[in-house]
């Protein structure tokens, strides 16, 4: 029993220390930003949920919607003066079938990258460079917008219910399972001519950076774009 308590203090410490961090990665290729290039920003893929005492998570439509709006606005503000120009496109708006497929493909590549390059085998210390691409078809995303890059953002978060907070306190004392909520924001910049992900970053929210309110979203996006190359 004692040894599990010890284990859990360590685990909790690790989880807590993970708050408010970012992990930037650039591709294996030499990256030179194209001058005055327009960046196409897709509204982020967001899913926020409540973590209940039982351990089930329940999606909250209102939080997800406001999280998506807030992150979109923060991205607009943050990038307004940095790149050659931005175009924001609603990921659900009518697009060509090819574009819809490319957005889907990008989501899949992002999830894979997140799993393998960030969470998985390729731990940060092992390898800071990687190579991921959605292929040269990416240019179809630009359509006639003239965009040279596309920024794709994926956000996931869960928030502990009151019952969960109480349960965690009791569980931590017993050395049982403790689950915290948390928010992650993952971004990838795609070169639309090659389809390569030329830059990506995973930002984990600090306790005061809640994407459900505009101020928190600003903070989160600032840390997400800390090393943004454009």
């Amino acid at each position, binding site marked *: 029993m004692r040894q599990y308590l010890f284990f859990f203090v360590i685990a909790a410490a690790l989880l807590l220390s993970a708050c408010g961090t970012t992990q930037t990665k650039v591709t294996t290729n030499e990256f030179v930003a194209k001058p005055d290039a327009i960046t196409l920003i897709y509204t982020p*893929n967001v899913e926020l949920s409540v973590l209940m005492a*039982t351990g089930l998570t329940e999606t909250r439509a209102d939080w997800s919607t406001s999280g998506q709006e807030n992150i979109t606005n923060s991205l607009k503000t943050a990038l307004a003066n940095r790149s050659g120009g931005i175009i924001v496109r609603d990921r659900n708006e009518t697009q060509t079938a090819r574009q819809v497929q490319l957005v889907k493909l990008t989501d899949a590549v992002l999830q894979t990258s997140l799993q393998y390059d960030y969470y998985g085998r390729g731990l940060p210390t092992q390898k800071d460079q990687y190579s991921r691409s959605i292929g040269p078809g990416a240019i179809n995303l630009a359509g006639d917008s003239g965009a040279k890059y596309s920024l794709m953002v994926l956000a996931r978060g869960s928030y502990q219910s009151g019952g969960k907070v109480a349960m965690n306190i009791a569980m931590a004392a017993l050395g*049982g399972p403790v*689950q915290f909520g948390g928010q992650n924001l993952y971004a990838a910049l795609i070169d639309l001519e090659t389809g390569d992900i030329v830059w990506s970053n995973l930002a984990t929210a600090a306790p005061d950076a809640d994407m459900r309110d505009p101020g928190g979203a600003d903070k989160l996006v600032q840390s997400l774009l800390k090393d943004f190359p454009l």
Partner: protein
Amino acid sequence: MIKYLVSTLIALTLFTTSAYAQSRPEDQSTDEAGLWYKMDKYEQALKNSGAVIDDPELNAYVRRVTCDITGQEACDKLRIYIIQEPIFNASMAPNGMMTVYSGLLLRSENEAQMACVLGHEYGHFAEKHSLEGWRRAKSTSQWMIGLQFAAAFAGLPPEMGQVINQVGSLLFYRYNRGQETEADTIGFNLTAKADYHADECANVWKNLISENENSSFKSKRRRGKWFNPYSTHPLPKDRINELEALAASYSSGQKTGRDNHIAAITPYLENWMKAELLARDFDSNIYLFEQLKARGFPPGMADYYVGEAYRLRKEEGDRARAVAMWEKAMTQEGVPASVHRALAEHYRKKDRKADALASYQTYLAQSPQAEDRELILAYINRLNKQLAN
């Protein structure tokens, strides 16, 4: 008395079916809105996936039958996706997304049978069964907290607690027996109200049982009595009894919509039968294809694919059975060009060079765009040379 009660129930339900139309939840902070949000995202992903058949004619057909049973107002709120997949299945998500699998369309004898299944799925949606299920999962899973504490007290590793959670949530997030019966009744009522023949709902399950009893796989044959594609649904025997009781109490319409159904499915018949063969359940394939022929689909097409099933099954005597089916198919209506290639292969292996040559030539003449055109031309050249010598 019971009969009287049942018909009163039907009358009541028929009367209230117009209240079935479902709307998007307004309060976005509820669990229901969360379910819709999640399903909307899933739908977005499904929409342009390669799995959806977007042929406007087939979609219009399935939508027309659905709207006939649900009524136009409710139907306008549904999005229907036809999925290319050789299994008997349909589903309805809590946000109004209906998915209909090609295997269900292939196995329905007529509009009425398809309507029974789609009406059943629609019943789950109309009665918000997913939401009920989720709420049940949430409340029932409270006991998992107790188990987790028990595990912690017992000094089990923390991972055990997480496993308890995951298993627990899977156990309870399902339709239960009562919801299934309710959905069956709604499916029956909607179908009957649209003037379809009342016996057809029970026939859906009778056909499925027969198909499974003819399976090559022992496990599936054993499941014959109680096989159900939804795995949580009631035993087909019970549901047949219930549906037959409903039908007996109802003065039935005579419409089945058989000809319309066959006309709508026939353009896909070859494709879908080919897909069925991939499951390698050849005995059940042979049974199904023979059934399709009996139901009025082009016999030449059905016979050719029965022959294909024999060829792939490779039991003692199957080669001869396959050839017999192909030769029979040749004399029937609707035979596909592939039969000539199949026979040509057979003749070539039997060293019947002239027959092989003639069949290859007929194949290419009937199917000039064939994918294997180059290969066939090479065979023709070789056979020509051999015959000249």
